[in-house]
């Protein structure tokens, strides 16, 4: 019986990976809704579960276990980059234009700031080779820019894991911190919301969290959510362009 199941999954590794990731996401969104009242986004939890599962294996994480070898293809660079490019469909050029000068500047500053501070932190903590520094700095932009940059530059899986984790920490700090700091950073008007989106480069969770605490700003935020989303994506493509270039 066991033999049969192993063979079935061995032959259909990618499909088993679909099922497995589906279960991880279902569980994460349940935990996010019931335990954390959605204060920590389900996506961030799912990535954390993913990283934790990687401890079951060694160099290739969970894919070292033959049952889960399909995960390596599902999460490999080809499908990943393909899906990332597809997300650009959500960007509306007209919306980006309407964000104005402050919005556009915040984009550039956001990418440059995240990248440089990320590189600086990594450098101070003992990482010195340019490719690793760029990957961790890119991870400080978002958890997807890091790995894409990393594999383009050919860094080791360990550095890629660090860059994913950096991006996840960023998402969580942004989600939890936004309502706490909103008052102090004058995040109470649409323009500030747009600047915020450009600087932080994530909409994940922030919107819902802000709405529940300060309904008026939340509404402004929501109405600008499309712009922010476009912005997040644009930040993303900008970072893709610039991050690897910094290493040369």
């Amino acid at each position, binding site marked *: 019986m066991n033999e049969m199941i192993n063979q079935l999954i061995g032959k259909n590794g990618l499909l088993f990976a679909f099922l497995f990731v589906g279960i991880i996401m279902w569980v994460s969104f349940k935990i996010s809704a019931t335990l954390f009242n959605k204060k920590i986004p389900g996506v961030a939890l799912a990535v954390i579960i*993913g990283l934790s599962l990687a401890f079951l294996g060694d160099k290739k994480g969970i894919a070292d276990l033959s049952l889960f070898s399909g995960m390596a293809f599902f999460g490999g660079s080809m499908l*990943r980059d393909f899906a990332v490019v597809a997300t650009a*469909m959500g960007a509306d050029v007209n919306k980006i234009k309407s964000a104005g000068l402050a919005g556009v500047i915040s984009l550039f500053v956001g990418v440059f700031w995240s990248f440089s501070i990320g590189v600086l932190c990594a450098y101070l903590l003992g990482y010195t080779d340019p490719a690793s520094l760029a990957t961790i700095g890119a991870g400080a932009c978002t958890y997807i820019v890091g790995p894409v940059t990393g594999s383009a530059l050919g860094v080791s899986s360990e550095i890629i894991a660090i860059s994913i984790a950096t991006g996840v920490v960023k998402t969580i700090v942004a989600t939890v911190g936004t309502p706490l700091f909103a008052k102090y950073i004058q995040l109470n008007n649409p323009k500030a919301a747009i600047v915020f989106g450009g600087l932080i480069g994530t909409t994940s969770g922030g919107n819902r969290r802000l709405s529940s605490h300060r309904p008026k700003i939340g509404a402004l935020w929501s109405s600008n959510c499309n712009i922010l989303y476009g912005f997040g994506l644009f930040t993303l493509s900008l970072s893709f362009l610039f991050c690897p270039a910094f290493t040369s």
Partner: protein
Amino acid sequence: MKIYGVALLAFCFLAGKFLGTLLGKLIDVNGDVGGVGFAMLLLISINAWVNKKGGLEIGTKEGILFWSGMYIPIIIAMASTQNVKAALSGGPVALVAGTIVTLSAFFIVPVLSKIGKEQIKTDDHE
């Protein structure tokens, strides 16, 4: 048809990667520099151009949007296949960098919000 969307996406992807590799050669970096970024910009431009002429057909759009929706699951699969044991032995860099980057960026918000006088129009229909 959905395959048209997937094909368009594949075209943007390959063209972007090609440009990225070319740029890498140009600045002497072994690898692809900004290929995914070029591909995204290409898709954004094609989409904007087609929108002026009435937009992509729904089926075509769905072919692209499916892959867009697979982005998060792929990230999770990717996270689970990294060498995390080695990453953890490297210390708390992720925690430190992620926290400092985000908190420090918060405080640039009021500074940049002062740029320009124009008010942002909010679209209540969305």
